[in-house]
């Protein structure tokens, strides 16, 4: 968010200089190595500090949530949910969100105690935050179990890139996707004996063959007809950075992320896809190019060969094939975060032949 952050240019420093093939025992190489290491050590030991004006104060409760007394700043566009207690509106953050802000130096977290709970319940009118213990990073990390930690790594990775993230909360805020049997009937058998086939006159074999669907294929959303049992869960809804984002009225997520240890079996994939919020229909129309119709451009268009046009059609077709269905992204933590995108292919409505 801060422009200065990007100007730090870590890549320009010796940290990410071209690597060598193997140690050659020279002093030059030794120096290079120790310089890089020193730079990294100095960067990672840099203190986390917050200007008092930007600082948010939170109190970690026994419910494993952090209550924010006075929320401010841009982070609350997607972070937390608000709740009214005794006439006051507070924002509650979950562990991942709290830790992200704590580590970034935007939040100070105190450990709540009995007295503070009484204050929240309305038994005490006044409460001074300075009476509480403050938590450092190690303390807060010790509240996280291993699966939380993995989730946090994925969460923080995407947050650092600027994405908006909420934990997946089922399909309740969105219309459930429905499976509709396609316009064309499925099997050849049905084709021949249904009315649709017979209410037309055919004047050649070619037309008949075109009308017959000889290759049966699975349809998008077909897995919704059945309930699949699986341990795989979707963990995050992710949105690209956007202006009109509202926590109360969540738009359809751009990506949905599932944390995995092992690649899912086919039943798990179906179960995951059934939990995916139905993506908004992507418009087929391409953004119109702003090319001015000059004589030169027209000439170029004419010069476009048949082959070029065909290639373009193929590209469009492949795009449709991949993007018409549902999509889920699998994330695995193994020396950094690795993402794999898994999409339903639309062989039914896109004709390849």
């Amino acid at each position, binding site marked *: 968010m801060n422009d200065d952050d990007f100007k730090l240019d870590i890549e320009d420093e010796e940290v990410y200089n071209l690597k060598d093939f193997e*140690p050659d025992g020279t002093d030059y190489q030794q120096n290079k190595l120790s310089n890089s290491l020193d730079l990294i050590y100095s960067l990672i030991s840099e203190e*986390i500090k917050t200007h008092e004006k930007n600082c948010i104060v939170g109190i970690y409760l026994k419910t494993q949530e952090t209550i924010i007394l006075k929320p401010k700043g841009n982070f609350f566009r997607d972070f937390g949910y608000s709740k009214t207690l005794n006439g006051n509106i507070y924002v509650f953050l979950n562990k991942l969100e709290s830790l992200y802000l704590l580590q970034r130096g935007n939040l100070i977290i105190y450990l709540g105690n009995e007295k503070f709970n009484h204050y929240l319940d309305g038994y005490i009118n006044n409460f001074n935050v300075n009476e509480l213990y403050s938590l450092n*990073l*190690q303390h807060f990390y010790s509240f996280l179990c291993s699966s939380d930690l993995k989730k946090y790594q994925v969460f923080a990775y995407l947050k650092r890139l600027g994405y908006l993230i909420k934990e997946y909360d089922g399909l309740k805020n969105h219309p459930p996707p429905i499976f509709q049997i396609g316009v064309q009937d499925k099997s050849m058998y049905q084709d021949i004996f249904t009315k649709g086939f017979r209410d037309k006159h055919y004047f050649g074999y070619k037309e008949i063959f075109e009308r017959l669907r000889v290759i049966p294929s699975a349809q998008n959303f077909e897995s919704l007809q059945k309930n699949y049992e699986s341990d795989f869960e979707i963990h995050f809804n992710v949105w690209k950075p956007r202006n009109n984002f509202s926590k109360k009225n969540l738009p359809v997520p751009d990506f949905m992320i599932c944390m995995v240890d092992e690649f899912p079996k086919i039943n798990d994939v179906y179960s995951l896809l059934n939990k995916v919020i139905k993506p908004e229909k992507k418009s087929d129309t391409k953004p119109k190019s702003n090319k001015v119709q000059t004589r030169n451009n027209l000439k170029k268009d004419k010069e476009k060969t048949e082959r070029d046009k065909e290639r373009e059609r193929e590209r469009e077709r492949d795009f449709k094939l991949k993007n018409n269905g549902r999509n889920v992204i699998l994330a695995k933590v*193994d020396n950094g975060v*690795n993402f794999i995108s898994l999409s339903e292919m639309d062989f039914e409505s896109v004709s390849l032949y």
Partner: protein
Amino acid sequence: MILLPVVDNDVLIFDVEVVKELRTHGILGELSGTLASAPQQNNLLGLPLILTVYEILWLVDLGLGKLIDGTKLPVPQIMSPDRHKMINTNKGGSFYHVKYGYTQDQLSNEEISVDKFRCQVNESSYKVFKYLKSKGYWILPGLKFGGTFVAYPGDPILFHSHLIVEPISEVNYLDLVVSGRLATGVKKLFVIGDFEGIEDEDLHKEIKDIEIEGTSIGETESRDTELKDTELKDTELKDTESKNTESKNTESKNTESKNTESGDSISHNIHSIFSIEWAGFG
């Protein structure tokens, strides 16, 4: 002895000094936190350092580290904002500080058994890890290259990795082809290995043997680091050669006779390390 605080199934390091010390043993871990000075990027991350299961086991088995309960931390300090404020002369106003964590002597002394980590690992993977470590390689998890590990000839910060490593039990013929091709494409060697039939004690003996030879794994504290580095280099050279089927017969000219002997004895005992390459006939 390095204290390794355990939280659930992870070991998290919050002390830069410990990170430095681990690196002298060739233990890299994974930096995972947001960097205070550059919070919107993922190229270089900050504390805490998360250790992999293999690294934890290796540290404990060689007596370099001790697992302790990481959830039992000292009582947090009362932080009145004034005490932690720092006046910034440039812009004015004060700053709050958030500390990373505790130093080694502040941590609890309650030891935790290593068993819960041992049952998480694939045993042959761990043996391969130990073997490569004893050969002086630096090891990182290898999912990005389709293996269990990737092995580097030196600190990964400066050197490219040479090997993609996978225990044989995880490999079928299809994997051989796929990974072998991939490895050739990224100019690495695909190495598969296993220690079936070799008892853990023997492996320890192997590592001990190499220790005597001078790679000083396990004893690094007392040794001069410069000495260590050069000697590591020697064994590495020899090692890559013994793995490289084509150059099996060529001998490294510079290695002393003593080194070659012990090198031979290693290759006699541990014969199940293979390298996969596309043979360039014709």
